[in-house]
């Protein structure tokens, strides 16, 4: 028999904005009484709050009369829902065959060197989230990455480092 599982409840201080349910309640109210509303509500709530944390999921559950456990089942089924904080910029590094051959692994390494995050992780300042994806369908530009909706191709590790630094310093927002 394995040992007793220690329950470590993730204690995370939530900001007042994260616990302000105005937006959440308004979104749920839009779908009041509608059947099959769970997924659109979760999508909109995630857009409004960034990601789906425990208190938020519980609040949605209370509004929709569904337990948070059932909702969590839905959330973890779909890749589009996130239960961990996301960075301002989501870096999608293509790890398809062409990009792999052209050294996209090195770009992931650059992200780790600069921000200390691996695949699926977000840095403490919530600037970057790294996602390694299978193929973004731009093999001609290999190795290619996407930062939010913007595509950067034909990169060397050093070029990618500069791009990330530009994002970090806010230059790319202009």
């Amino acid at each position, binding site marked *: 028999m394995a040992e007793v599982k220690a329950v470590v409840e993730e204690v995370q201080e939530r900001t007042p904005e994260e616990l302000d349910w105005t937006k959440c309640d308004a979104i749920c109210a839009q779908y009041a009484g509608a059947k099959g509303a769970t997924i659109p509500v979760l999508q909109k709530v995630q857009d409004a709050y960034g990601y789906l944390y425990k208190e938020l999921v519980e609040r949605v559950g209370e509004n929709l009369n569904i*337990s948070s*456990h*059932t909702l969590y089942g839905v959330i973890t089924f779909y890749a589009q829902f996130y239960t961990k904080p996301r960075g301002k910029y989501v870096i999608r590094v293509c790890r398809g065959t062409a990009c792999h051959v052209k050294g996209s692994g090195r770009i992931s390494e650059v992200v780790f060197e600069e921000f200390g995050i691996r695949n699926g992780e977000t840095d403490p300042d919530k600037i970057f989230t790294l996602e390694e994806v299978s193929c973004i369908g731009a093999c001609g530009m290999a190795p290619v990455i996407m930062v939010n909706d913007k595509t950067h191709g034909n990169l060397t590790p050093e070029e990618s480092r500069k791009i990330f630094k530009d994002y970090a310093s806010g230059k790319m927002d202009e």
Partner: protein
Amino acid sequence: MVTLKIDGIQVEVPKDYTILQAAEKAGVHIPVLCHDARLNPFGACRVCLIEAVGNPRLMTACTTPVAPDMDILTNTEKLQRIRKTVIELLLVNHPLECPVCDKGGECTLQDLTYEVGLTKVRFEATPADTPVDHTNPFIERDIDRCVLCGRCVRICDEVVNIQAISFINRGMETMIGTAFDQPWNCEFCGQCISVCPVGSLNNRVYLFKNRPWNLEKTDSICGLCGCGCYIELETEGNELYRMGEVPDKGANHGNLCAKGRFGFEFVNSVKRETSAKIKAAGEAADADFEQAVVTVAEKVKSIKAQHGADSVAVLVSPRLTNEEAFLANKLAKDVIGTAGMYAVEPHSSFPDATYADIETSDAVAVLNLDVTEANPILGLAVRAAARKNEAALYVFYPSETALKRLVTKQFTGNPDEVYASMTRLVEGQGEEASVLEVLKKAEKPVAVYNPYNQADLWFVSELKKQIPGLKVAAARAKANSQGVLDMGALDAAKLKEGIQNKTIKALICLGENPSVRTGWADLSLDSLELLAVTDPFMSETAKKATVYIPVATYAEKDGSFTNLEGRVQSVNKALCKGLKTDAEVIAALAEKLGKALPSCSCEIRELIRKEVSLYKDVDFDGGLVKYADAVTGEFAKPAKAAAGEGKYFLYPSSLRLHSGSYTRWSPDLAKVYGEAKLEISPADAEELGLEDGSSVSVSAAGITKTFKVHVEKHMTKGCVALPEDYADTAEIFGKGRYHKVSLGKKG
């Protein structure tokens, strides 16, 4: 109706049947794993695959509806091969820890492996070795053994409607779990354990205590609340090990609650008394049974000679069987010569709606009752109506209840507001008028109420008058609350009066514990010259007894209980702890008083048939007694519910995992809820600077008591609740059910 052939056997079945149901009717066995008759078809395990002649695709018998002229084959060579592979694949990730698994011997997967003749698994997988989860007090969870049949998730959703667990993640990573990996926190009904086909969810109360093949099973009826659930007492020797569910028998469809499933331990309790006690000069000393009975008989004789027969009273507990209650009445009437026995049970309510009526109802009103807590299986019927039948559901209760997810509308507020709301319902005013309309228009309207609130009967009788088709269900608290009334118990209010004005000098108290009963605790029993008490435990009343005789619990006797539907069901003796039953005590006492009474339940049953007209033709194995009226008497429109001057409204909440005073002797239930706690809303708690576990003094009706606090987010602001049937709360509720109290932080 549809006619089809299954393995060459022709059957005719209704057109909404599945192939599996048709096969059952044809007497053809199709192996299943994820199927449960109480749940919607799911088709996850693929064990029940069958062939339909002319269709190249294999179909799952549990999900495919029948069609005319189908020709189904269930056991071809191809199917045998496929089933074997399906089981083989399940065994790749299922650790073969069968020798140390508590499910061994009653594991569906083990049985299926044997059935398909699988001897070797050709594939290997790295064991996951996930730690076993012990965070739930009753349910041990080993997710590595899980085969993802989903029965636990589905029963928790479809039947219990708590949705405490779900499928988490997808694909290879799927597991059964909770949101954000929190500990399992639920009503602890253990329904998930009962449907788990493997050793993934285990009963911690039974864990590693015995092996299933050693256990002898005795069909009986649960002796705790008034629901009357059909159970199997699983025993070895004279030890009770487990409560088994019987899905195809009884009105509860095999469903049980936390107290029913885990609260049986008091039967085995080492704290049970084994010897009678006689008190002399304030000191109780051990005595043998004979001595105790003689002492009671002598006292009764002398008191009767001195003060007349009416100075002796017999009080029976609603936990006695019908047979025992009948005998107690004979003792009171024929042997002692009084008007009859008494019971602390409301006399104006009678069974009306059955579970089936509630389950198929299209409009249900729950009046001033936390039904899922008080009578969980009655609660399941209400849930089934709302969930499966999509009935309109209205709940009137001071706080939010577990029915919240299913309600059409809930009316919460302090007890006075709830009474005002129910008054508007009856009078067809305000927002509640629409509820009355729905109930009036419904085909099968049902109201569930709390008969222990005398004031509530006005609402029930008024609704009955206005809605002729309305069926009502009185949530009776104890296993035989109804039965003892049917056997002739008189209203105990007269008894209380008699004790207060000292006209009653001797009380023979059979199993009852008036010292903790709501409305009784303030009654002093000191003036009695004889207080004879029978109880399995040294109860609060037994401590005051002149003569105390320990007796058998419901697991140790034969007889019958009448549940809140008016259904009479047989209770069967499963074990013996060497103690007398109440029937034997009564018979022995009668003999000493000079009259022979039978103590064997079959003989008494014959007498009941002869002398109790309601039970003349009733079947003692599940028959319904027919009552003339659901509510009798005239009731006054209640004014304000609560008395007193305090700032907060106090009302009695349901028993929180307990059923009266017996289950407090069950260590596992007591671990979770061992003492009476004051439930308070987060807002009030903050105002008073209280948090979970801090102490608070409650002052009401001139009594101040200290309780631990339980902050409960469903509580309405301005209201607090305490459970009934606890020695600590009895004094407060001794003066009435609703109070306005003041609270003070302690320490």
